[in-house]
């Protein structure tokens, strides 16, 4: 195992080493207003600038990103993000504005937000749109708040149950739980659809609604989607759509047309806003006609119509029964909205449709190449992703071993152990941005690894071999939590 050790920045510290030498002060000395704000006892590392640069340069080379290679992390839609986005979000008119500026001075920004709202409505078939939520789960929370507000406005107070299929994203039950709703899990049937019998049995007048990820985490489009929505609506519930897997549907199906009442987008998945590494997410939420009045405030609207040469005046509007503000200011403007706007404008309707067509084609191509070598428990035409089992009869190789071994072939591993309804799950989402050569190299690697699992299982158990660090001890890391360099008692003794 090739372990390349790079000490921590604290271990590299040497007393007295400094980055810059300050000249003698040429202004009168004055005391700080509040000395308690400063702590001289903090164990800050002492290094020269060059050492700091080299340290972080080394660490950055240990990284792996979608700009390095294939990144088939299921349900994360780790597509390549076009670099033109980086130009547009740094245009001075966007970069050097502040959300507290008078609206007359930021009309360009407001036009962009207004048009993005309209475009997302067109793409999804919804009647209203907010751009505020910071990311997907925040969008879910916003959506569920609106569902709660809707029932409350009708004095329908006995609705406390949220129906969530077992093939949903894990954030769905968490979002429902945040509002104090109890979660009722609905099983999947043998084809990976919502089990209609179980759903019908759970539908009654205590149902807030259902949160459905479609396509679901098996990469399956629910074949009975209209029936599912009808059942939920019939008992007075609202239909929430998790839009995280929207990359399969652009220009093909509109969730609003299917009858969904609310859905969040993940601009950082579908619309090429970078993510991973804690980058800015963005989770706009679309709603059907009956939830429009509950949208967060403010939305971007037209305050005064334009005429002839005079453009309209864009500004902020407040929905009648708004749930209020979900975020300081108006969402992740430069980080999310400008990039997503650029991406949509660049592709247009036909381009967006092609994105989904190629995302689905690529996933099906990989699935077809791996069929026979890996068990695919829900084996039918998939959407943008599919789930294989990372285990072989008579072998003690597990999904984790396969995932780690893929790193030796210079691929980022797929999502593993999710969804929970598949044993040793490997959840693979290639996205539309990969060419056939890359897909073939990845399939070849997985097929080779399946052979290795039989002939040299230890190769998999000990993987990865070529990374700076070998197999991490996940159990030890989770059981013995050490989250800082110094224990509190050490710190006090210094």
């Amino acid at each position, binding site marked *: 195992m090739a372990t390349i050790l790079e000490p921590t920045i604290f271990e590299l510290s040497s007393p007295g080493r400094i980055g810059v030498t300050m000249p003698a002060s040429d202004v009168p000395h004055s005391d700080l207003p509040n000395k308690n704000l400063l702590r001289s006892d903090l164990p800050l590392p002492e290094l020269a600038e060059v050492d700091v640069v080299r340290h972080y340069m080394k660490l950055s080379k240990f990284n792996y990103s979608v700009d390095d290679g294939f990144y088939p992390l299921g349900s994360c839609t780790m597509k390549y993000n076009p670099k033109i986005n980086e130009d547009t979000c740094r245009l001075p008119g966007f970069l050097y504005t502040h959300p507290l500026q008078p609206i007359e001075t930021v009309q360009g920004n407001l036009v962009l937000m207004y048009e993005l709202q309209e475009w997302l409505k067109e793409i999804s078939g919804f009647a209203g749109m907010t751009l505020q939520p910071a990311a997907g789960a925040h969008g879910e929370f916003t959506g569920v708040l609106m569902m709660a507000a809707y029932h409350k406005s009708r004095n329908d107070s006995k609705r406390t149950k949220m129906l969530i299929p077992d093939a949903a994203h894990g954030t769905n039950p968490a979002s429902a739980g945040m509002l104090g709703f109890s979660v009722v899990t609905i099983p999947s049937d043998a084809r990976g659809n919502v089990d209609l019998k179980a759903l019908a049995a759970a539908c009654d007048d205590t149902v807030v609604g259902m949160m459905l990820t479609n396509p679901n985490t098996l990469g399956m489009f629910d074949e009975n989607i209209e029936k599912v929505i009808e059942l939920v609506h019939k008992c007075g519930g609202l239909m929430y759509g998790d839009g995280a897997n929207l990359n399969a549907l652009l220009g093909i199906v509109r969730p609003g047309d299917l009858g969904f009442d609310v859905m969040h987008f993940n601009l950082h998945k579908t619309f090429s806003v970078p993510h991973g590494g804690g980058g800015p997410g963005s989770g706009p939420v679309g709603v059907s006609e009956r939830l429009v009045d509950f949208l967060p405030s403010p939305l971007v609207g037209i305050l005064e119509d334009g005429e002839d040469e005079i453009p309209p005046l864009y500004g902020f509007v407040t929905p009648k029964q708004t749930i209020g503000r979900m975020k300081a200011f108006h969402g992740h403007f430069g980080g999310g909205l400008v990039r997503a706007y650029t991406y949509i404008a660049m592709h247009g309707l036909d381009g967006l449709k092609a994105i989904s067509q190629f995302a689905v084609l690529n996933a099906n191509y990989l699935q077809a190449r791996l069929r026979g070598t890996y*068990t695919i428990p829900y084996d039918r035409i998939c959407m943008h992703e599919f789930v294989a089992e990372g*285990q072989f009869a008579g072998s003690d190789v597990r999904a984790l071993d396969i995932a780690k071994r893929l790193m030796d072939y210079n691929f980022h591993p797929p999502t593993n152990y999710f969804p929970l309804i598949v044993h040793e799950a490997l959840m693979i989402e290639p996205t539309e941005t990969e060419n056939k050569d890359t897909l073939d190299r990845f399939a070849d690697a997985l097929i080779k690894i399946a052979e290795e699992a039989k002939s040299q299982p230890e190769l998999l158990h000990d993987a990865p071999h070529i990374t700076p660090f070998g197999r991490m001890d996940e*159990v030890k890391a*989770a*059981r013995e939590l050490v989250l800082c360099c110094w224990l509190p008692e050490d710190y006090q003794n210094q």
Partner: protein
Amino acid sequence: MNVPSNLKYTKSDEWFDPSSGAMGITDYAQGQLSDIVFVELLVEEGEDVTVGKAIASVESVKASAEIYASAAGKVSAVNKGLSDKPETLNSDPYGEGWMIKVAGGVAGDVMDAAEYEKYCAGRAH
């Protein structure tokens, strides 16, 4: 897979001992979860639990799971040491890995050992 014949079992892989009132997770469950790294018991001594109430939250390197009461009754003991040694659930799920005990426990919809063994076999791939 270890399935003691004196215990009762739920479909969600909990066991219940009618003679001692103890309950916990099965050998099958700990095997599916793999290395368990965190346990939080959600009920206290003296509390009344109903069948299906969440009594513990368990996390492994693979997944997290809620553990539900397999019988109703008043909680007479809680295995407080478990949270310091979550690995006990892997090594001894029916012994040291017991979670809570209830007095006068009334089991819910449970299976006997033979039925549970068949149920587990039906889920294996």
